[in-house]
C-alpha cells in the first residue's frame, strides 16, 4: 500500500516552495518524499531543483553559495552550473576541466500559481489543482507539520476552516473536500463561489508534511495581510491540534519512505558523441564574423567550462572547432563566433554562406583543453582578432567570481570588435586596441604582463605569430611555462609523416606498425582502440596520450617546449616517433 502510494507520488507534481521563497542568491532547502533538495534561482530567473548533496563529500549544497550562475559547495568549493548541474570547477585540480560525468541529479520543475512544483520522475502533464492556467492566487504561508502525508490528509478531511470573516458573512462551506484528480489537494469554497482556497500537501518525508495554501482570487495590496494572518492562525491551530494528538513535533522525522538510493550522478545528460543541434539564432557579430546560437534537437547539451570548444561536423565532410562564448550558468545552448577565413577551405565559407537559422548541424563536445584557473589573484587575458572567443567566456567567468583580471583585445579596427554586448559588461577590465602594428602590440603585451608575480596566470589566443610572440615575451619576463596558457586555432607546422615505427600499447598488449603516410591515431582506430579527437592537426589537445617509453617526435602546437622535452605525452594525430618503438599508456 505504502509502496504503491510512494510510486504514484513519485511521478506527480508536488509544491515544494513558494516562488517568492526563492530570494535572490539564496539556496532554499526542503525535502520531497525523503529526497533532500536544494532549490535556487539563477540571476537569469531559471529555477534549479537539485539533489541537496555535493558529489565530492556529500555536504549539503543548501549550505553553499548561490553566485547567480553557479552553486558553490561551502566545503571545498566545487562549482555546479545552473540548469545542467554539471561540475564546472574543482579547486583542488585548478587546471583541469572536471569530467562530464560529474553532474548532480536535477529534478523536473514547473512554476505555476506562485508555487515551485517538483517531481522525482518526469510527470506526463502539468500541475493540476483545478485552477485556470493563468490564475495568480495569493500564496499563503506554508507550514511543516510533524506527520506523514496520510495522517495529515486524514485530519484535513475533518478540519473546519472558516473563510476570513469579511469574505463570507453569509456563512461558508467550512469543510474541505478533496480535489477529484489530485488527492493531495483540498478545496474550500465560499457559498457564492467567489472565493476558493486550496491546501496542497507536500510529502516531505515519511513523518513530515508541508501544507501549502492558495487563496483566490488575487487581492489588492492592502487587503492581503489580514487574509494571510487569518490562514496562518488557522493552520497553526491545525498543526498544534494535530501534533498534540499525534505526540510529535515536526522535527521527529524518520522512517516511512525509502531513503533515496542514488547519489545523483546523472549520466543521461552526458553527450558522448555527435548530436544534432539546431541553429536557433544567427547574427552579424562584427565585420566578417557571424554569431550562431545552437540548441539541442533532443535532450540537453552537456556542461561546458570557460575555454571549451565544440566540433562542428559539416555536411561537406569537414570538421571545424569553435570556442563557446557563453558566460557561467548559461547552459542549454551554445553561442559561437565564426570568422570567414580568406583562404577558407570550405569550413567557415560553408557556415557563412549556407547555414541559416533553423538549419541543423552535427556537433560534438564540448572539449576543454584550455582550462581556466579560478583561484588566482591576477589573470591576464590577451586576445587577437577572433581569438577573443574562448577569452570572452573566461572573462565573464572571472568577472562573476570577482577575481581580478584584465582582457586586452587587439583588433584591426572598431568594426572588427566581436561580441560587444558581452564585453560591455566587463567595465574597466576590458581594453580594446585597434589598428596596432605587431611591434606596438608586443609593447602593450609587455606592459600588461610585467614581471611575473606569484600565482599570476596568462591566457592568450589569436593568430599563431601573436601567440608565439606573447609566449616569448612571457619567458623573457620570467613567467614560468606552466603559467602561460595558449590555444592555437591551427597548426602551421609543415608536417612530416615519412617515418616508420611501432607503437606498443602497454595496457592492451598490442604492438602496431605505423607506416609512412599514416598517423598513430588512424592506426589505433583501425585496430579498435577508440580515442577522442577533435582538430586532428595538433592544436587542440584532445587526442593526447601518455608516453611510457621511447622518444616522441613532436609536431603539435598544443604542448609547450618543456612538455615536448619531457617526452611523456604525445598528440597522436600528428606526432610520431624518433625511436623504433613508442610505448603508450593505453
Amino acid at each position, binding site marked *: 500500500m505504502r509502496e504503491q502510494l510512494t510510486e504514484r507520488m513519485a511521478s506527480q507534481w508536488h509544491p515544494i*516552495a513558494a516562488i517568492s*521563497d526563492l*530570494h535572490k*542568491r*539564496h539556496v*532554499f*532547502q*526542503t*525535502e520531497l518524499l525523503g529526497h533532500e533538495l536544494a532549490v535556487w534561482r539563477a540571476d537569469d530567473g531559471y529555477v534549479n531543483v537539485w539533489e541537496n548533496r555535493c558529489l565530492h563529500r556529500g555536504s549539503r549544497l543548501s*549550505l553553499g*553559495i548561490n553566485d547567480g550562475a553557479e552553486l558553490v559547495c*561551502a566545503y571545498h568549493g566545487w562549482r555546479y552550473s545552473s540548469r545542467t548541474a554539471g561540475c564546472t570547477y574543482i579547486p583542488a585540480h585548478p587546471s583541469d576541466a572536471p569530467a562530464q560525468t560529474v553532474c548532480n541529479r536535477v529534478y523536473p520543475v514547473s512554476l505555476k500559481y506562485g508555487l515551485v512544483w517538483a517531481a522525482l520522475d518526469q510527470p506526463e502533464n502539468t500541475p493540476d489543482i483545478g485552477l485556470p492556467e493563468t490564475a495568480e492566487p495569493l500564496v499563503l*504561508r506554508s507550514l*511543516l507539520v510533524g506527520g506523514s502525508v496520510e495522517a495529515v490528509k486524514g485530519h484535513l478531511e475533518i478540519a473546519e476552516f472558516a473563510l476570513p470573516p469579511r469574505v463570507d458573512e453569509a456563512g461558508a462551506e467550512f469543510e474541505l473536500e478533496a480535489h477529484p484528480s489530485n488527492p493531495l489537494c483540498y478545496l474550500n469554497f465560499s457559498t457564492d463561489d467567489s472565493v476558493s482556497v486550496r491546501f496542497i500537501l507536500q510529502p516531505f518525508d515519511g513523518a*513530515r508534511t508541508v501544507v501549502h495554501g492558495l487563496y483566490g482570487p488575487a487581492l489588492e495590496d492592502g487587503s*492581503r*495581510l489580514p487574509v*494571510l*494572518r487569518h490562514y*496562518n492562525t488557522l493552520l*497553526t491551530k491545525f498543526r498544534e491540534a494535530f501534533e498534540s494528538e499525534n505526540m510529535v*513535533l*515536526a*522535527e521527529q522525522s524518520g522512517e516511512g519512505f525509502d531513503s533515496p538510493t542514488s547519489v545523483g550522478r546523472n549520466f543521461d545528460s552526458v553527450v558522448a558523441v555527435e548530436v544534432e543541434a539546431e541553429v536557433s539564432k544567427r547574427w552579424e557579430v562584427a565585420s566578417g564574423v557571424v554569431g550562431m546560437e545552437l540548441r539541442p534537437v533532443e535532450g540537453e547539451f552537456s556542461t561546458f567550462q570557460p575555454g571549451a570548444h565544440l566540433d562542428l561536423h559539416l555536411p561537406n565532410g569537414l570538421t571545424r572547432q569553435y570556442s563557446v562564448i557563453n558566460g557561467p550558468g548559461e547552459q542549454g545552448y551554445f553561442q559561437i563566433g565564426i570568422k570567414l577565413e580568406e583562404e577558407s577551405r570550405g569550413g567557415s565559407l560553408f557556415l557563412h554562406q549556407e547555414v541559416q537559422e533553423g538549419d541543423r548541424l552535427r556537433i560534438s563536445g564540448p572539449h576543454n583543453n584550455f582550462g581556466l584557473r579560478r583561484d588566482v589573484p591576477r589573470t591576464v587575458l590577451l586576445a587577437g582578432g577572433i581569438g577573443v572567443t574562448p577569452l570572452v567566456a573566461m572573462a565573464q567567468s572571472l568577472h562573476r567570481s570577482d577575481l581580478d583580471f584584465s582582457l586586452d583585445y587587439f583588433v584591426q579596427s572598431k568594426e572588427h570588435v566581436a561580441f560587444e554586448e558581452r564585453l560591455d559588461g566587463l567595465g574597466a577590465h576590458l581594453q580594446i586596441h585597434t589598428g596596432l602594428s605587431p611591434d606596438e602590440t608586443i609593447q602593450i603585451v609587455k606592459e600588461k604582463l610585467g614581471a611575473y608575480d606569484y600565482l599570476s596566470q596568462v591566457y592568450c589566443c589569436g593568430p599563431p605569430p601573436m601567440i608565439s610572440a606573447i609566449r616569448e615575451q612571457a619567458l623573457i619576463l620570467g613567467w614560468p611555462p606552466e603559467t602561460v596558457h595558449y590555444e592555437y586555432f591551427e597548426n602551421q607546422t609543415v608536417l612530416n609523416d615519412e617515418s616508420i615505427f611501432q607503437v606498443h600499447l602497454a595496457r592492451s598488449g598490442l604492438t602496431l606498425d605505423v607506416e609512412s603516410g599514416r598517423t598513430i591515431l588512424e592506426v589505433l582506430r583501425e585496430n579498435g582502440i577508440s580515442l577522442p579527437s577533435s582538430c586532428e592537426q595538433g592544436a587542440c589537445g584532445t587526442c593526447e596520450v601518455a608516453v611510457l617509453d621511447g622518444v616522441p617526435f613532436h609536431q603539435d602546437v598544443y604542448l609547450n617546449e618543456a612538455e615536448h622535452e619531457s617526452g611523456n605525452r604525445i598528440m597522436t594525430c600528428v606526432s610520431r616517433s624518433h625511436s623504433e618503438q613508442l610505448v603508450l599508456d593505453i
Partner: protein
Amino acid sequence: MIKLYDYELSVNCYKVRLLLNFLLVPHKLHSIDFFPGWEHKSEWFREINPLGHIPVIDDEGFLLRDSNAILIYLAAKYDQSCRWYPVHEPSRLGEVSQWMMFSEGTTNTASAARLHDSLGYEFDIEACREGAHKLFRVLDEHLWFQEQNGSSWLCSGDDPTLADLVIFPDVILSEEGGISRVGYPAIRRWADRFRHLPDFSLMAGVLPT
C-alpha cells in the same frame, strides 16, 4: 584598548566579537582555555568574574560581564548612529529588548543542545531541541510576516539591531546541536541577509553565504 576575555567557540563571545567588528572598535582578544582547561573557573578568572562566565570586557579598567550587558554598553558608547540600540526611539527600543529577552530562550535551548553535542555538557538534549523548535517556529512566523511587510529584520525599521545580532549565533550554529533549520525558510533567508551585512565576521562553524 578594549580587552575581551574570549573563547572562539562560545556563542556569547561571538555576539560581542560581531558587534566590535561591525562598529570597527579596536580591541584585543584574551583567549580563555574554556575547553578542556576550564580556565573560566580558575581562581584568577573568578577575580575578574565571580560567576566564572565569559565573555567579560575590560574597557580601560571598566569591567563588564554578560553578553547582553556588554552589547548594550558597547552600542551606547561606540555606535554614534544609534542604529544597533535605538536609545532615542522608545517603541523600537522596546522591541529590541523584547527580542533580547527572547534570545535567553534560544541560548538556553539551541545553544545548550550544541554544548551537549560538542562539549559533552549534561543537559536534557531532547528538551533542549524541542524547546528550540518551539522558539524557531515563533521566530520563523515573525520573520515571514516581517518580509510580507517589506521588513528584513526582527524589529521595525530599515536597519538590523542588537535583536538580530543576539539571536543570529544561536540560530546559525543550531545544526551543531542537531536542530535542523529545514522547516524555517524565513529564518534561513534572514540568516543570509545578516551574513551579507558589511563588516560581518565569521566564526568556526559559521559559513559565508
